[in-house]
């Protein structure tokens, strides 16, 4: 793999940048692999990378129906944080956070992970109780965070309206300084480049049409271009399309695929240095290095694979953002888009064995998968390498929906006397 550095850029500038190597090959698939990963998004590529690099499994193919990193990786709002409530989730996301710290160096690819901090605002007494509860749990789990009052929030984000004029005035927030954002495309490309360098075949524009299952065991996949490609183990990391793949395996998942929309403003000069999220007014915002305000909110209520949602969701999102940041009123929305998020009933992922032997799924990340990309890839790679679920993945078995051991990150849903 060609090493990237500032010096390299200088050197290549003398040859007019004509000699850069390809970031990855464009291979024809082999007949058989040790592991096939279906889905070349961030999580799938991270899985392939760690399989090859950490667990020595290099006879691996990633099969992607479109282009690498073209699904939710390309469409998310890039927030990275690990301040989850329940131990199981917190440990998983913190595992990812630790990998984020140093990922650019590990991949020799600048994923622009920028730890500019994340505020989760509280607007009601119950919000503040929930924030206390979560931050306390985080602290005892070794995850950074503090509870701030409105005054402290105002100091961190001068442009936020912390006055009483708001319909739901800001009462405080949780603050995770290590949280931040990263450059989403670069994450996919960095993992892809790293995986390719370790010998992983990245097969793009190839749709898996069926899973080949013999005696209850998966033995490969079927594609239009290349026919059957065999494998000892198959890992599906296809986010919104997980239910479609599961159907090929003959089972259902506890998932619904919903549109999740996001939008950006036109680029403006730096005005918002941190990630600001509010569950109560239902919107969040950060500012990209390019200057765009990156804005998102919740899912649309219906199932949808159309990568678009309803305009009313956009309206509510912008109302929420203006409620938080009234001075953005004259800023303009440049572009909106949608992804397909696979939501789980307990707002936690599924990293799991399935009813089909040697078939594994990593899905159900819902609206928050990006932040877990390296961690998700790492624990899934470990599981695929050994054929046995990684310790951090165990609580996220799909079978928890049978025995009731949910990890309910929804928390209290605004019910109060």
């Amino acid at each position: 793999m060609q090493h990237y550095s500032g010096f390299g850029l200088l050197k290549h500038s003398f040859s007019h940048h004509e000699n850069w190597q390809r970031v990855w090959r464009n291979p024809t698939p082999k007949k058989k692999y040790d592991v096939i990963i279906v889905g070349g998004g961030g999580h799938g590529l991270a899985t392939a990378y760690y399989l090859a690099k950490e667990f020595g499994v290099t006879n691996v193919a990633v099969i992607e129906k479109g282009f690498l990193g073209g699904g939710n990786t390309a469409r998310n709002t890039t927030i990275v944080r690990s301040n989850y409530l329940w131990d199981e989730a917190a440990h998983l996301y913190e595992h990812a956070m630790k990998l984020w710290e140093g990922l650019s160096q590990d991949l020799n690819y600048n994923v622009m992970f920028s730890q500019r901090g994340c505020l989760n605002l509280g607007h009601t007494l119950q919000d503040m109780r929930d924030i206390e509860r979560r931050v306390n749990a985080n602290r005892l789990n070794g995850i950074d965070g503090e509870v701030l009052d409105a005054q402290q929030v105002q100091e961190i984000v001068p442009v936020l309206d912390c006055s009483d004029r708001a319909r739901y005035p800001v009462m405080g927030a949780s603050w995770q300084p290590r949280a931040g954002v990263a450059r989403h495309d670069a994450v996919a490309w960095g993992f892809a480049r790293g995986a390719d360098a370790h010998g992983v075949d990245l097969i793009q524009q190839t749709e898996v049409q069926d899973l080949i299952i013999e005696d209850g065991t998966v033995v490969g996949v079927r594609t239009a271009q290349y026919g059957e490609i065999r494998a000892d183990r198959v890992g599906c990391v296809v986010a919104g399309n997980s239910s479609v793949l599961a159907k090929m395996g003959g089972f259902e998942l506890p998932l619904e695929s919903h549109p999740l929309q996001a939008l950006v403003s036109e680029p403006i000069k730096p005005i918002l240095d941190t990630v600001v999220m509010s569950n109560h007014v239902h919107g969040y915002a950060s500012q990209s290095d390019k200057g765009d305000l990156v804005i998102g909110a919740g899912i649309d209520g219906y199932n949808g694979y159309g990568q678009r949602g309803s305009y009313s969701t956009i309206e509510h999102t912008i109302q929420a953002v203006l409620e938080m940041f009234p001075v953005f009123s004259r800023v303009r929305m440049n572009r909106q888009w949608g992804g397909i998020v696979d939501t789980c009933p307990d707002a936690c992922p599924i990293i799991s064995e399935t009813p089909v032997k040697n078939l594994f799924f990593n899905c159900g990340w819902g609206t928050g998968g990006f932040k877990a990309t390296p961690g998700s890839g790492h624990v899934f790679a470990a599981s695929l390498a050994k054929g046995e679920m990684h310790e951090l993945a165990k609580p996220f078995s799909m079978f928890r929906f049978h025995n009731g051991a949910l990890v309910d990150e929804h928390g209290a849903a605004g019910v109060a006397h």
Partner: protein
Amino acid sequence: MTSSSHTHGSQQSNRLQDGGRIDRSKTLTFTYNGKQYKGYAGDTLASALLANGVDIVGRSFKYSRPRGIVAAGAEEPNAIMQVGATEATQIPNVRATQQSLYDGLVAGTTNGWPSVETDLMEYVGKVGGKMMPPGFYYKTFMFPQSMWETYETYIRKAAGLGRAPKERDPDSYDKMNQHCDVMIVGAGPAGLAAALTAALAGARVIIADEQSEFGGSLLSSTETLDGKPASEWVTDVVKELATFDDVMMLPNSQVNGYHDHNFLTIQQHCTDQFADRAPNGQVAQRLHRVRAKWVILATGAHERPLVFGNNDVPGCMVANAVSTYINRYGVVPGNDLVLMTSNDNAYRTALDWHDAGRNVVAIVDSRKNPQGTLVDAARERGITIMVGSGVIDVQGGKRVTGVSIAPLNDAGDEVAGSIVKMKADTVASSGGWSPVIHLSCHTGARPVWNDDILGFTPGATVQKQLTAGAINGSFSTAQALLEGLSAAQDAVQLLGLTEVEVALPVTEEITESKAMALFHIPHTKPTAKAPKQFVDYQNDVTAAGIELACREGFESIEHVKRYTAMGFGTDQGKLGNINGMAIAAKTLNQTIPQTGTTIFRPNYTPVTFGAIAGRDCGALFDPERYTAMHSWHVEHGAKFEDVGLWKRPWYYPKANETMQDALNRECVATRESVGILDASTLGKIDIQGKDAREFLGRVYSNAWAKLPIGKCRYGLMCGEDGMVFDDGVTSCLGENHFLMTTTSGGAAHVLEWLEIYHQTEWPELEVYFTTVTDHWATMTISGPNSRKLLEKITDGDVSKDSMGFMDWKTMKVAGIPARVFRISFTGELSFEINVQANYGLHVWKALFEHGEEFNLTPYGTETMHILRAEKGFIIAGQDTDGSVHPFDLGLSWAVAMKKPFSFIGKRGMQREDCVRPDRKQLVGLKTIDPKVVLPEGAQGVLDPNAPIPMPMVGHVTSSYWSANLNRSIAMGFVKGGLEKMGEKVFYPLADGRVIEAEICNPVFLDPKGERQHV
């Protein structure tokens, strides 16, 4: 550089003496970069700047190269301005080509230091630019790890265009919901013909156009219709359309989004096109939300510039834009023009330039043998035409000074002869036209490449959508008119209306020869070494950059776009994308359709956040719900708490009281005498029908079969998973009649819950649900003197014997018919008085009139929380979080496992994980030091010295200072807590303290419940 010596008098050196659609009698003064200029009514900011000879309107994003105006409409990538006369009215990133000029307009460029004319960053760009190929930032800034955020600070400062205001927006914005038969997007020839046709057939029509007046391309054309200037036909049609009541005409209105089921959004500029801020009583912009039966897209086309060396030097423009400035605004943006074209149509620009009295240096046509009406017209004027050639490079820094022209080979991909240099200050170029298909893509349709017109046209759609004119690649006026008419006739027919014959005007007959597929003009050097050839001006994406991206393996057009940032600007690649795709296709040795296109998303052009939010901010962000007694609470100094949509009194501080003082006073007064709570916000659902009782038994965890009329009962509501989600008291009003109460925030959810089970699972049950929350005002008097107080103003018998605990009765209170419930959330003798809401305030005041002798004390939600916690009563949402079932809460008494019907939640709470003995269970917590109040949300551990991560056993859900008990009290979850009475839990806090507490029964006061039974 000012480039004219032809005009005289005014500053407007590039303004023609006559012609155009501007009003020379109305001079407007505006400020640009601190200097005053003049323009005319009818100008855009861009045309006025060009009239005044302003060449540089911005600096490029990456290389800080000087940039000028290149286009005349929505596709303009460079002239992005900061507009606003005051701090509060700043608007970032206004496209000068779309901003009408008004008197007093203040605009400035968004970057360049110390000025846009002399930008020191240009030198950085020149030197460092070589090290900044696409994606360079992925390859560097990695070492040392800790430095990235420092590098990033500088990257951020350099990026961004304009700035947000620092003050609140003084303007307001409206929304309107519109319904129509036919929504026509674009009021050019196709759109106008369609509108007239549909209107004559009696359809309800909305026609919107982004420009300040209708007419589209005809406004800047020298074509004739019926032998008269085309604009006369436009005027006639607009006049005629205005006579129809059912036709809404929206100029200055961009259709920005086309959503599913024919829902479109239009941003109408009401005053912001004409004023810095909206005059009193007017809105700056209005967002129309349109539901159309049929949509006709007549959105036209954007001309593509050609990609050649240094094609970004000010003075390089899109050919048609030059014509527009001449014909519509009477502005000739230079003296010596070179026109570079691959098609006939662009010859019009040379003709217009020539006819304006300026010098056409040459027409450079990439084709070997152009023939046609316009070519002939150029020849007639004696204009030099250099065929089979291309402009390969441009000289000049802040303005074009000359061009290099070279013969090209047949394919147009190699220079095939020696270079000729010519002096010129303006280079107009045309590589053909790209249909404006943006809206057609918004609902997911994939565009289709059309080789005949060298552009993408709209793909198949499931929307009720028709298209007409240039969007289909029908670029001639004649064809546009015809397609407009025929699309409207189709719509009319589909709507079931009767078609009316419409006469179209006679157009000029023009013959044209075939255009050449040319996007990127070759240079003598390979692209990587040639002068920069810009594809996307705003993001500094060059042909070399696209080739490099492809070479590095970014082969999908989406990868190319993302790696180079092509099309990510505020113009969203309207000018550059097709050129970029063509260059990528060539590099990858593919056809353009193989390479494909990226997908356009809303918005077509950027939309003000304020307009999208409309009025729904501040107090209107969510409705505020008040109880009937709200004014009393305000008068008595209550602090309020947001509970759902409700504003509930939180506590009532008296002068100089701290919150804790007030709570102590309220708590003690209630337990010692009597307190009163406004409980109107509790959800109330009236349930009737012969199966109402059966239904209750199914949705509540406890038994309802035997609740007699006149009695009340507490119930827990669980999901199918067995987890508690709401609770409340339900009273039996009659054999088939119940009143259910819910939590204040949960009322709507509970009602929908009841309905879904009734309608989908048990439709055979005869039961009806009606929300009556707002119908009743509810006031709870609680405390040992509550009966005495009530007796003073009721005609009912509320004595212990006649009205026991959990009884309810009708009676008059303060002369008003009331339902009085003897239920208690404080553990005291309590009466909940319900009266018709309009009488609420009257009864409330009457209670106070009679309550003085008992020191009747109003209390809010906080005291309610303390009093109930003293009794160990839960609050759903505070002591539950969707992951606890009744047994976890120690409420096994409220679960009737033996009910014949398997109630909702029963099966769920018996799953393997739900019957674990070490589940987190709700218990009371007594701090060892009674003066210390545990913080709510504190996490408990059994071993405070365990290393991080510490095993946690559960959190504190409710915790208060109890003035009545003179100690702190708390409730919280502890793993296996119900079996751990008397054991210790430790709470390590953020401030370093570790609070020790003992697990206890959560009923802290009156464990036998004697106080409520008096």
